[in-house]
């Protein structure tokens, strides 16, 4: 297990360091207060840096944290101290870009909260129990956005709005590719 790249947590915080969506894959922070303390510390340490064009990186309590900000959203990915930094950055970039695609370019806190279901699904598709599932933003967003009735559903169950939604999803998917 220790040879496989492992993600310790993925955090999406707002510009005050408050949680929007977080996912921990490690027992290093057993309680909610331990998690909050970690988030607070990471936020304080990175707040003043400029991580808007390129992903930035820091060492922190024997963790490597890569992070990137856009508008009032702060994205973080944490790994162990011996983790390959570039792999962590790839996960961060996948998450960051997938959220960008899913929010259709309007990437800010309001939009993120209004589409929290997409963000949560996105986290679910990137890492499973610490193991990287996917880093390609298009694939991640594609998997999250595939909202439609399953093929076997009788047509009568679909309302007009649902049919329209389905059509829109198909369009998005083709755009995302």
């Amino acid at each position, binding site marked *: *297990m220790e040879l496989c790249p492992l993600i310790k947590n993925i955090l999406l915080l707002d510009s005050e360091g408050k949680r929007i969506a977080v996912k921990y894959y490690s027992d290093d922070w057993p309680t909610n207060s331990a998690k909050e303390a970690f988030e607070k510390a990471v936020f304080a340490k990175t707040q003043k840096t400029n991580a808007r064009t390129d992903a*930035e990186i820091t060492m922190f309590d024997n963790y490597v944290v890569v992070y990137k900000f856009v508008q009032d959203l702060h994205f973080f990915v944490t790994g162990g101290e011996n983790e*390959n*930094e570039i*792999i962590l*950055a790839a996960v961060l970039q996948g998450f960051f870009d997938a959220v960008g695609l899913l929010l259709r370019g309007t990437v800010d806190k309001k939009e993120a909260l209004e589409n929290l*279901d997409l963000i949560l699904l996105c986290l679910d598709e990137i890492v499973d129990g610490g193991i990287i599932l996917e880093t390609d933003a298009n694939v991640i967003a594609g998997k999250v956005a595939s909202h439609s009735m*399953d093929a076997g559903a009788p047509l009568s169950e679909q309302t007009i709005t649902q049919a329209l939604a389905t059509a829109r999803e198909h369009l998005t998917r083709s755009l995302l590719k």
Partner: protein
Amino acid sequence: MAQPFLKKDDDHDDEADYSPFLGIEKGAVLQEARVFNDPQLDPRRCSQVITKLLYLLNQGETFTKVEATEVFFAVTKLFQSRDLGLRRMVYVIIKELSPSADEVIIVTSSLMKDMTSKTDMYRANAIRVLCWITDGTLLTQIERYLKQAIVDKNPVVASAALVSGIHLLQTNPEIVKRWSNEVQEAVQSRAALVQFHALALLHQIRQNDRLAVNKLVSSLTKGSVRSPLAQCLLIRYTSQVIRESASNTQTGDRPFYDFLEGCLRHKAEMVIFEAARAITELNGVTSRELTPAITVLQLFLSSTKPVLRFAAVRTLNKVAMTHPIAVTNCNIDMESLISDQNRSIATLAITTLLKTGNESSVDRLMKQITTFMSDIADEFKIVVIEAIRSLCLKFPLKHRSLMNFLSNILREEGGFEYKKAIVDSIVILIRDIPEAKESGLLHLCEFIEDCEFTYLSTQILHFLGIEGPKTSDPSKYIRYIYNRVHLENATVRAGAVSTLAKFGAMVDSLKPRIFVLLRRCLFDTDDEVRDRATLYLNTLGADGAVVETGEDVKEFLFGSLDIPLVNLERSLKNYEPSEESFDINSVPKEVKIQPLAEKKAPGKKPTGLGGPPPGPPSTIDAYEKLLSSIPEFANFGKLFKSSAPVELTEAETEYAVNVVKHILDGHVVFQYNCTNTIPEQLLENVTVIVDASEAEEFAEVASKPLRSLPYDSPGQTFVAFEKPEGVPAVGKFSNMLRFIVKEVDPSTGEAEDDGVEDEYQLEELEVVAADYMLKVGVSNFRNAWESMGPDCERVDEYGLGPRENLAEAVNAVINLLGMQPCEGTEVVPSNSRSHTCLLSGVYIGNVKVLVRLQFGIDGPKDVAMKLAVRSEDEAVSDVIHEIVASG
């Protein structure tokens, strides 16, 4: 697709900080979850409610058991809907709720249906959910589907099954191991991530089979692994193989090095970096092997991406510790990183430069660092200070500029840890570089003129007292020290008084002036300061009788207190005021040897002020004191050895009991440490009834019951046995805990008056030969062996029968003898066919024993051992052989 969760009377949506979750409340959301039970499901609304539930969980809200169960059952209803979006949310929330085993059964059939669905997304997610929540009993039922899924043509499904396999391997290895054919097929997948997950799982299935891992690595390093992540894994596995096979290839080329080097030309940065890092971490890497790796890392240093620069500089920083020359090529790139926006990168660059720098570049470097220091945080500064200290020790000629640098930053603002790091560095430089002494001491003097940290002031004063009098002109320090007596708090004033006295004792010409100063201190407001002044005036002979300071006075002033402070503290606490005055000679002097783990701590820093911290209280001392404090055992003589506690109960039983075996010359004392874990009970008159029928040479002589054992406060009861003096008698003892139990009212904490007698069976305990052996190491085994001579040597050979591997056999013998392995010989290199292990110890009766063990293993894992024993007494040498022969 998700809509804002508008409440009807909510019109906040135009406000900037509007949140759809504003005023969200758990109770209300749980109410809303009732829509899951509607006969006509509204998928969108259900999705929204699930999102709200997930939001609450994500914010750290917890559901009670009842709430979670209710939500879980409601959620299971949603499997009726065929809306994909809703189903995804259902999957996520089931994982978050982590249902209990009996709840899992409810969703099993739904999930199994999804696992075999035609929709890829259903299959992939259902596998992940089911494997996440299952407890293994279900696994055999779904194994068939999982094996199919691993080779599914849809990569998402295959990955889901493989990743689930990686998790399940931790809990159900025997099942997952049956999948290796399918996993092997998946390694060849064209989908990048499937290949990555398959490789990770395949390696984990085979990780204990070195040959199989070897084969895996050598076949894959030839072929083409497409996925960069899989390639990174392969590099990690390869370096592991290299590490484990390193011993026999010291001469020729390293196997697989070409593969690592080839990876440096990969198109993915993560692979290039992984390979470069792997090369730098090779055991005994040569500079020829290093060069290509350093070259790519150097390119990364000038990348526009901070992550790449950080990764490169962090790796080079590590290389610089062992191969500074190899990194010097990167110095120019490093220097430009000093101004890097990212201060972590800048700090790593500086400290790397400090490690690789040569004498001529020091001055230039220091100039750059000065500007750099003002805008980094204390934690980075400390790292830099430590690097500067080692640089100065490397180039003592440069002490002037480095000392100046340190004194300059000492004057600037900074927290305690930072200041302490600087002061420690100056102290170390003063100690190690004689030319730096005078300027260093003056810097310290100036620092204490305006130092806000009492601890640092007193430590510096103490140090001044030792070093100051030895300088060419001690008088110039007096002013600084005496100023402290006027201006500081009592602790510092007392320290200053002691320092003044040391000057007076060492420098006779200063003595009259020191006396004047000390006399002034007699009017201090603080007791300690006055007491010290009085004491020193008397010992130094201020009444004018003696001019030369006596040796015993010097010894008193400067001699180190050769008693561990913890021991002194304990003795003083135990001392009861009486006719007899406290005798410092009664304080035990043994210090427990620091645990090995602490010694191994990487980058052991030289201790600056204050010397090494006093060791933890010695356990053998504590035991000895404990035993001698019990009248029944007081005349048993000196304690030879106390074993580590042996548990006599299972974990989490009503009463937890462990035993410590105390071995004395003619006695054995069992110390039973008992803990009562039941709050409603008070135990009284606790004893252990020991049946020694299987320990013939032992006879019970005394026991000491434990009067009362309240909840959660451990107590001890003892049983003592007599045994033939000096003989390593062994035997088995069965134990029964006997006590009177009284009910305790939990609300008042008061026990009832009447108790019931009860017994509690404990596990057996054994006194073995190893109990008579003290683990005492020798620093140079060969010398000790030679000087012991062959007079009492006994050599014999033994067959140890089939063993798993050599390491296991070596460990078994070490544990049997209870001796201290020397020179790291307890570690058996993997794959080796023979091994020599050196042991040392002291046998009861204070007989030194040295043992040389030679092991060999042949084909069917049969281990043979040659045992050579040297000791001061041939009888003891024979005993060692008997122990091995019977063990």
